[in-house]
């Protein structure tokens, strides 16, 4: 199972990375794309949109299902990855390279409250039947 230790995670299977410029890059985890299967469509939030923590803000659609993606923390969308919207399969190829959008967090300290790799690994383990 691929859960990089330098990233933060949510219970709803997003990953987040605090960048040097203070923004937070967001995508869905390797585990999430594995559950969903072949991606066929990605809809990102508009740049400039203000998001509350946990707000539904993007959609990933696979051959199995459409799933909401939630904002890991509150903030403003400062970039959306158009390359991923054009080639959704990039998420299947490498979920951690295929980022979806970047946030400017309302409160940078919020990042610390997200799950670390160990806690996320335990969550995935506990969800497996």
């Amino acid at each position, binding site marked *: 199972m691929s859960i990089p230790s330098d990233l933060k995670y949510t219970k709803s299977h997003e990953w987040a990375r605090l960048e040097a410029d203070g923004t937070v890059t967001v995508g869905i985890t390797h585990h999430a794309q594995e*559950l969903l299967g072949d991606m066929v469509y990605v809809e990102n939030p508009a740049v400039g949109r203000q998001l509350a923590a946990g707000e539904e803000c993007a959609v990933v*659609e696979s*051959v199995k299902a459409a799933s909401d993606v939630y904002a890991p923390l509150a903030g403003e969308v400062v970039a959306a990855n158009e390359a991923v919207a054009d080639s959704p399969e990039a998420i299947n190829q490498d979920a951690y390279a295929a980022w979806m959008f970047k946030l400017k967090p309302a409160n940078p300290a919020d990042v610390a409250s997200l799950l670390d790799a160990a806690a996320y690994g335990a969550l995935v383990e506990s969800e497996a039947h």
Partner: protein
Amino acid sequence: MLIFELSRPGRKNPSQAPAAPAEANDIPAHLLRRDKPLLPEVSEMDAVRHYTRLSQKNFSIDTHFYPLGSCTMKYNPRGSHQMAMLPQFLARHPLAPEATGQGVLACFHELQEMLKDVTGMAGVSLTPMAGAQGEFAGVAMIRAYHASRGDAARTEMLVPDAAHGTNPASAVMGGFTVREIPTDRDGNVDLAALKTAVGPQTAGLMLTNPSTLGVFEKNIQAMQQIVHEAGGLLYYDGANLNAILGRVRPGDMGFDVIHVNLHKTFSTPHGGGGPGSGPVGVSERLLPFLPVPVVTLDAGRYRLVTEHDLPQTIGRLSAFMGNTGILLRAYAYARTLGGEGMRRVADFATLNANYLMAELQKAGFDIAFPQRRASHEFIVTLKSLKDKTGVSAMDVAKRLLDKGFHAPTTYFPMLVPECLLIEPTETESKQTLDAFVAALKEILEEALATPELVKSAPHTMPVRRLDDVKAARELDLTWKA
């Protein structure tokens, strides 16, 4: 082959009959089209053969066991259809006076009464023309109820994650924001999470019961109390009514709204994109908001209740009485079954599901909730098979086609990995169920011995494995010569 590929210039439907001269010469020239429409030019014989051949390539409930969970693909008696097709019904015009339509209005009124009886609700409107429209009507009534009390703060609809996917969609269509409630280990709604979620912002809770996990909620009473005490209303998604028909009534459980899918439970085929019918039932406090028209019996005469009688109604959902053909079929079916027959439907839908679940468990399959009794459907998870052999739920589903069975629902609900959702319905015999178990057992053996055989299935169908990813990514529905 597409019918367009059979097309030959100038070939006409009545090939042998002489062409009649065009008679519509009173249409102004500027309204006449100059070019022929791009339609296939084939003879009647070509068209008959083409579509008959297509139908032979298909799986259908008339030819195959169709255990598509969450869809109730049961046999719909031809007799109900025959009754609905009586010429007196077919010839009735929806705008004809009530005085000349007392018979058909009587059927609708009795159907309303029977649905009230079987759901335990105080009133029923037959007009919604699909399950989702029934849901929309239900959600709109909840909204109208809170609005009528000046309670504008109730903007949030609670939806358990084991609900039908239409539930959150309907809530959003009704102007609510959706809050998801998780499921506990046993497949019930997580009561602790529900308790923390309710508040003055709660408009209601939409419950699919039995849920998409194929289990009956154990804590209905507690849920009912939590939501009602918070001032919210309770919505019952009755799409899985087959499991409880005549046995338990959502009205008795304290629910305020229910929609029923006549096209699942009451004798109309389902899954072809319609026509459907999703009547709504309501508790006493929602009666003023029912969608119109509703049929009432007034001093010995049947008549339509309209906006005039019911000023607070949420309005009309269809031009007339909904899909009347479906309503008449449901009426014929309900009258044929009676109370005893309805109870038998629920008994055998449940018995068949539990028998199949027990036999598949014996055959070596993992059941998602083995500690729970199945309702009318249950979930098999193939996760351990996938880990061991690489054979997925999709592969097993495709291989079932080779064995002469329509596949169960795959990868739904999302809560269970590599799952098959299986619903046998009450209309299948023990012999059919045994043959289905034998087929799945064979596939399990194949998966262990020759996984490639299963992974590359189907092998005997008109087409091999289709590229569904390509189809979704590069959808192209236009035929080009």
